[in-house]
């Protein structure tokens, strides 16, 4: 048993190492000279060369990789070439913001998608079901940033009910934090919600056609009760897969909404750091993202195992 756990962790660790190599290689061919960017247009070529040496940019790739990853393993992401601060805290701060944003939006999305998806599935052949389903289809087709732009225009600019953007740490001022979170979370969540509701719908539709629902109805359970008692757990499995993937893509994908709302999240940080060729920071961010996604996959698998006894014991 211990062996199996160790083996799984071993696979996970190997995947992370490979991912780190991929990350490093991909980023090592970024054009642009970080030293020149740091010094600006007035610096001479000699200054730039000296700066490059100081930043350790002239060492062979393998040395740079080992140095970097070795330090990452002990929790040291290195020092940003731009802010000259340890990168770790910068990444954790931004990651925290993005995770809060993404999770809030996903919760909103679920709050919307589950009832909506079930409703559209159950009333599939009715007019109202078709209309609702149409609405969610259109919701899927609207770009997220457009939704964000429109929300800002209406609720922040025209009505002045809510701030147009920015971020306040929850520890600093929770009320303000909540106010600042509402619009971006809705913008991000509405589109995700529309997408998720499609999955909930098809998943519920699928489950509704399962024989065991018919069995439940043959027992005398009404259609609704049969669906709730027997269908939803079964429908949850495919929806969870999608949810896992969505969260994974949203960590970076939220950058569009972060831009619309000027939120200093991880995606924004990545874009800024890439622009400034702050390589240690970029590598750190990408690695954190990758590990996060891999870990998420791992967790989704775990959740499956909990929900579905077929995966728990094979017999």
């Amino acid at each position: 048993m211990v062996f199996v756990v160790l083996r799984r962790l071993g696979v996970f660790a190997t995947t992370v190492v490979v991912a780190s190599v991929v990350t490093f290689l991909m980023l090592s061919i970024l054009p642009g000279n970080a030293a020149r960017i740091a010094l600006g247009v007035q610096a001479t070529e000699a200054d730039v060369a000296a700066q490059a040496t100081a930043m350790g940019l002239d060492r062979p790739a393998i040395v740079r990789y080992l140095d970097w990853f070795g330090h990452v393993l002990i929790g040291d992401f290195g020092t940003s070439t731009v802010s000259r601060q340890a990168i770790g805290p910068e990444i954790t701060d931004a990651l925290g913001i993005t995770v809060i944003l993404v999770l809030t939006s996903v919760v909103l999305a679920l709050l919307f998608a589950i009832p909506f998806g079930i409703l559209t599935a159950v009333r599939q052949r009715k007019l109202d079901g078709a209309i609702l389903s149409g609405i969610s289809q259109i919701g899927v087709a609207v770009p997220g940033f457009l939704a964000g732009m429109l929300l800002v225009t209406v609720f922040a600019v025209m009505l002045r009910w809510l701030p147009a953007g920015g971020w306040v740490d929850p520890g600093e001022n929770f009320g303000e934090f909540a106010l600042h979170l509402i619009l971006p979370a809705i913008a991000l969540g509405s589109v995700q919600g529309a997408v998720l509701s499609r999955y909930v719908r098809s998943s519920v539709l699928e489950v509704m056609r399962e024989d065991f629902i018919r069995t439940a109805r043959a027992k005398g359970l009404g259609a609704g009760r049969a669906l709730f008692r027997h269908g939803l757990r079964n429908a949850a499995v495919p929806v969870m897969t999608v949810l896992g993937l969505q969260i994974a893509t949203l960590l970076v994908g939220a950058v569009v909404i972060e831009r619309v709302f000027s939120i200093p999240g991880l995606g924004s940080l990545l874009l800024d750091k890439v622009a400034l060729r702050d390589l240690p920071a970029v590598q750190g961010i990408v690695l954190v993202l990758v590990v996060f996604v891999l870990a998420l996959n791992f967790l989704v698998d775990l959740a499956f195992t909990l929900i579905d006894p077929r995966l728990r014991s094979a017999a």
Partner: protein
Amino acid sequence: MTAIKYETRARRPAGHGGGATLWAGLVLIGLVLLAAVVSVFWTPFDPEGVFSDSILLPPGAKHLLGTDSFGRDVFSSILRGAQISLLVGTVAVGIAAVLGVPFGIVAGMNPGRLDQFMMRGNDISLAFPALLLAIIFGAIFGAGTVTAMVALGIGTAPAFALIARSGTMQIMSREYVQAARASGKNGLFIGLRHVLPNISGMLIVQASVSFGIAVLAEAALSYLGLGTPPPTPSWGRMLQDAQGYLFIEPLLIVWPGIAIAVAVLGFNLLGDGLRDRFDPKMQVKR
């Protein structure tokens, strides 16, 4: 008589499986396709020129949907923009399919170590979503349509691989595959002759849905400045440009918004329709 019975059985589901949805999707995509094709040969005005004398005109007889800040006819730009959207969708989905499908099939046909190994590789590529790739590739190769398409393609490939793999595993357990093996056919033959044709239904559904996603992603990338560079009109960039004129000429944001929605909706409906059609459960049960 028996044969006739089976024939009607096979045809019947085709008649109504996902019918309305499918048609709605096809009509919308048809519109986009039409715009793309027409704009190759003709647009009312040049969508890439600069017309300093006709800046920001409201919709009217001459300029059906008005003009933008460069004096360009919005209608012409929308037409031409369909080309970019379709191009991005086609290339991205093409790349994703070309990379993902063989990968998934090979993994699915070789359960055990190779499959495990390939799937861990797939996990890693899943961890680099399209947008992340687009940002990195944009920095490496310079932002632009090609970079965006490639990034989207590579980013979507793992999804294709997963679908192809699960489909392949289903097909591999079918007896006709065993029969082919018993006939001495090799893996390549089985993959091409048996597996690929039989999972194509799933793949087409996936392709259609991915197409819609690619159109949306291109818009998002354009918004971030990582998409199609001007003056080539892309719907996403038109949206971004229009953002600055929201209070001056709000309609400017409406047209590309509608265009994107129509295209994405079209592909989603097509995907839904096709899924219903390919889904054996939606069909008459034997």
